[in-house]
Structures are given as C-alpha cells and as structure tokens.
C-alpha cells in the first residue's frame, strides 16, 4: 500500500460557480480510499488565504474568478506554493489557456462538463503521485549535486561533442580556472597534446566503459599538474553515448614520493652493485686459478659463494624492475610480430640446459604464424621466466610450449612434468617473494619476483596469466594476449 492511501488528501477547490463546486464536492465525497478532505473557496483572495494558512496537497483551480482571470490566476497560486500540484478546471474542450498553464507547470487540466468520478479520482491521485515522484527526484538530484559540488576531487561533465558543460568548485580550484575558461570549451584544451593523444588511444568512448589512469592537465597559467583521472562514459536510456564524466585528483605529492622511491631504489641498487662486483670478481679470480691452484673443497665453496652473489644480483635487478612497474614507469614498445618466432628464439637459448638435464623440448604450434602486437623484450622476459621455472623444477620428462588461437586472442602455455604445486600454494604463485612447495635442487635459485613481474607485464599487454597444477602431475602456466585491434 502506498503512502498516499494512509492519509487524507487535502484538496482545495477555487471556483466561483457554486453548482460546479457542489458537483465536484459530491464526487469527491464518494472516494473511499484514500480519503479526501475537501475545501472550497469562491475567489482567488480567499483561496490564496486558505492556501497560505493551511496545508494543501492539491489545488483544483478555475482560471476565471471574480477577482482574477486567466493565467495570472494560475501564476498567483503557483508562486504561493510551487511544490503543490495544480489542476486547471476549464470550461471548454480545447482551452488554449488551460493547455498553456500545463505547459507552465500545472499538473493537468479537466473540462468541467466532462468530469466524472473515476476521471477526477485518477487525475487527483496522479497529480499527487507525480508531484511526490518529482520531489524524490529533486531530493536525489540535490544529494548528488551536493556530492558533486563538495567533492574533494575535480569533476567535469562533457557532452557528446566533447564540450565541457558542467564542473565543480574543486575543478576550478585545482586548475585555477573559472566559467570563462571552462564553459563549452572542448575538453581537449585541458590536456597537453601528448596526454590528449594517450587519452584518445584509450578509446574510452568506443569501449563504452570506465578507464582510470595517470595523466597531466593544464592549469590556467599553462603549467601542467599531475592528476589521476577516472573517465566514465554517460549513456542515455537506449545506450547511446551522450558524453562523459571525468573525476580527477592532484597527485603531485604522490609523484614526488614515487620519484624519491625510484631514486632511492636506484641509488641503493647502484651502491650494492659496486661491492658485489668486487666480491664476485675476487671470488671468480681465485676460482679461476689466476691467483694459484685451489683444492676441490675450496672450489666447491667458492662456486656456492658465486651462486649466492649471482642470486643477489638477480634480486636487485628484479626489485628495480618491479619498482619501475609499480611506478607505472615502464612503457611497452608494442610492435606486430610472430609469437612463434619469439618462442623458438627463447627455446633455443635453453637448448643446452634441456640437453644437460635430458629433458625433451616440445613445441606445439599448429599454425605457420601467430601475428600479434606485443613488446618483444617483455614477452621474452615472461617466457624466459616461465621456461626457466619449468626447467628448474623438472628433472625428467619434458617441457612443452603451445600456442592456441582463440576467438579473442592467443593462449600461450608452458607445461612441465615436474612435481607440481599444491593447490593452496597455487593461489599465491603470482605473489611477490612467494617461494614454496617446490624443493630446490642444485642450480640457479629464483628471486621470488619473476612470476609477479610476468603477471604485470602480461596484464600491461591486456592479457591474463594463470597456472594449473596438481601434485605429481606437473604444472601448466598460461598467458593470453589479445587480438590486434581492427583499427590498429
């Protein structure tokens, strides 16, 4: 049961014709649910007095009153209470004035000679329901306007042609701009050229979704400010794109800290590498016999020492890599290329190691060519990591690589016949420094960062990476790369 049915609806009829008023009163008296409380005044003056003194839910208004005629009658009541619905009572079937009043905000109009119970009931109820719905919409809008205006983020609303049509106070403050700088200006004017190009490359409107990224925006004084922005496409009820909303924050401070962190990691890495070089080369020279003969025991210890140093060196490289990836400072240099060729290239570099361990190397590439768009060095890095892992943990059997084309891209896999990974561990296989389950034999030890790095690199390509494994059944790592977009 709706709210309207619980309380009496207060109707005010302003009508100078007593006969008409009696007819309407009698009709209204018949209404049972909801109940109506009927009030009646003969002229505008009394009507207005009542209207201002008492609460009224709906007004039935004759436009021709002894003390006021025409649209002015409607305007007077409307001014006195713009939130109260007004229904015009008209004398004729096609009353231009009544229709005009509806155009100016009256809820409806009724031709007096045709009024009957069900019609009046319906019109009154609808008038009130519509008014309440409008109030709810207004309240909701008001709520969002408050959020919009008081957000501590800049917000711009752009129409279908890319013109700025709305923005909030924070946007003005952040960019140091005012209405003159923003209203109906193309949103492109807010971005440095290369940043605008990047934005266009995201094809947000074509994709019709939301994108989040770091960029730069112009301030009024033509200096650029670092922001992170989230752009959402606006659509009408039929799904047509009508514009977009950009929500952005100043990230100058974050960028400064990122730079500091990068510099710090870079400096620390450099500082670590210098003593490592001395230790490594010192140990190597003794091991190589440059400084005289050594015993087998000495040799063994020095070889282990050297492995430790090399591992430390890999950890530093991986840490540098991941810190750059985290800071978003790695850009892909994507080019069209043949994945099969890349797989064969990486495979070839592992041949001596496969032969050493007596492992079979299986390539399963059913097609002649697999043309995709990717950063060759980065995909080599991913593949080297996956094959390196497989090699590390597989003592007998084979390592197989496969390429499988699917409707939206290609799935690459590296499969080994090693001991497998327990399902609990499998969940964390792409976490940083997660090394578990697999027992190390002699040889190169990992850094615990390789798969984490691979994951970021694959995702930067718009692909996914995942693993399947069962203890005793070997492990399969997969990664996908999306198809080359039609237009590029």
């Amino acid at each position, binding site marked *: 049961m709706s709210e309207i049915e619980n309380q009496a609806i207060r109707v005010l009829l302003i009508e100078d014709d007593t006969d008409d008023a009696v007819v309407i009163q009698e009709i209204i008296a018949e209404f049972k649910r909801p109940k109506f409380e009927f009030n009646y005044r003969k002229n505008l003056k009394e009507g207005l007095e009542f209207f201002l003194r008492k609460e009224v839910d709906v007004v039935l208004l004759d436009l021709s009153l002894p003390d006021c005629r025409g649209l002015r009658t409607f305007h007077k009541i409307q001014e006195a209470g713009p939130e109260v619905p007004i229904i015009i009572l008209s004398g004729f079937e096609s009353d231009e004035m009544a229709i005009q009043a509806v155009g100016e905000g009256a809820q409806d109009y009724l031709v007096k000679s045709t009024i009957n119970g069900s019609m009046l009931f319906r019109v009154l109820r609808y008038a009130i329901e519509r008014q309440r719905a409008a109030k709810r919409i207004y309240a909701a809008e008001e709520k969002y306007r408050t959020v919009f205006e008081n957000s501590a983020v800049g917000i711009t609303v752009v129409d279908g042609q890319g013109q700025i049509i709305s923005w909030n106070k924070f946007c003005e403050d952040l960019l140091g701009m005012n209405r003159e700088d923003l209203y109906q200006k193309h949103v492109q004017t807010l971005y440095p050229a290369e940043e605008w190009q990047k934005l266009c490359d995201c094809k947000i409107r074509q994709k019709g979704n939301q994108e989040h990224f770091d960029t730069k925006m112009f301030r009024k004084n033509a200096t650029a400010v670092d922001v992170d922005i989230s752009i959402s496409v606006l659509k009408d009820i039929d799904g047509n794109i009508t514009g977009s909303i950009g929500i952005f924050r100043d990230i100058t401070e974050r960028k400064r800290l990122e730079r500091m962190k990068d510099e710090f990691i870079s400096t620390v890495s450099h500082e670590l590498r210098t003593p490592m070089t*001395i230790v490594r080369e010192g140990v190597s020279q003794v091991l*190589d016999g440059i400084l005289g003969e050594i015993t087998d025991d000495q040799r063994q210890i020095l070889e282990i020492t050297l492995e430790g140093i090399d591992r430390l060196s890999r950890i530093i490289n991986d840490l540098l890599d991941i810190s750059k990836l985290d800071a978003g400072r790695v850009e892909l240099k994507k080019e069209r290329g043949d994945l099969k060729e890349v797989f064969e290239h990486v495979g070839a570099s592992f041949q001596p190691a496969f032969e050493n361990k007596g492992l079979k190397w299986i390539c399963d590439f059913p097609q002649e060519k697999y043309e995709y768009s990717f950063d060759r060095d980065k995909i080599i890095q991913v593949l080297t990591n996956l094959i390196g892992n497989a090699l590390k943990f597989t003592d007998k059997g084979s390592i197989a690589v496969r390429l499988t084309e699917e409707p939206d891209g290609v799935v690459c896999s590296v499969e080994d016949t090693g001991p497998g990974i327990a399902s609990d561990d499998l969940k964390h296989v792409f976490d940083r420094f997660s090394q578990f389950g697999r027992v190390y034999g002699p040889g190169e030890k990992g850094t615990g960062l390789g798969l984490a790095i691979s994951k970021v690199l694959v995702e930067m390509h718009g692909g996914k990476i995942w693993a399947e494994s069962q203890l005793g059944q070997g492990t399969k790592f997969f990664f996908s790369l999306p198809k080359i977009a039609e237009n590029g």
Partner: protein
Amino acid sequence: MKKKILVVDDETYISLMVSGRLKANGFEVVTANDGQMGYEKTLAEKPDLVLLDIMMPGVDGYECLRMIKTNAETAAIPVMMLSAKAQQADLAKAREVGASGFITKPFKADEMLAQIREVLAV
C-alpha cells in the same frame, strides 16, 4: 703486441679487480680514478680501449666519454661503459654519446672479456 686498456673507475678495488683480470688475460692495463684523469690518460696513453665507469665524482662517465669522442685525437678509441647503472635509459644514453658497448656490474669475467675482444677484434 699487447693491447692496452685504460680502466677508469673511482672505486679503487674495482680497478684492482678489473686490472687483475685483464692482466691475467694478456692485456696491458693503465688506470685512472675519475673522469678528468680518464680523459687526460686517454690523450696521453692512447690506449686501444677505454673501460669507463659512469657514476664518478666531478667529471662523470658520460662527460668523459663526450670529451674523448669530441677530440679528434681520441675520437677513434673505442670506449666501453662498465657500470652498475644498467637501465635501458643508461644504455641508450651511452650509445648516443658514442660508447661501443656496455658491461653491467657485477659482471661475469667471461662475458666482459668476450665483449672486449669483440670490440678489439682480437
């Protein structure tokens, strides 16, 4: 005749290690411990190759490389960077200024020697 290599590094122990390795492999070695001295010794010694660190106080490796490459007397001498700075940008910059190669620290002696021999064509 022995090929002469100039090792420029501000870290004395690195110079010591690199020199030891090079001498053990039949090279003649001279050293310098900053960029300015590196440039002066390049002029004076006319080595067959310069192994040049990047991060050094005063005249750094890039600047030293630029000085060597812009002086007609030394421009033809191949210079290989030997540095702990190993990011793509560093490699690109070194190549731009005229380096013939890039060895990252910590280096593997075999790989370093192979690169040196390739540049010297010995």
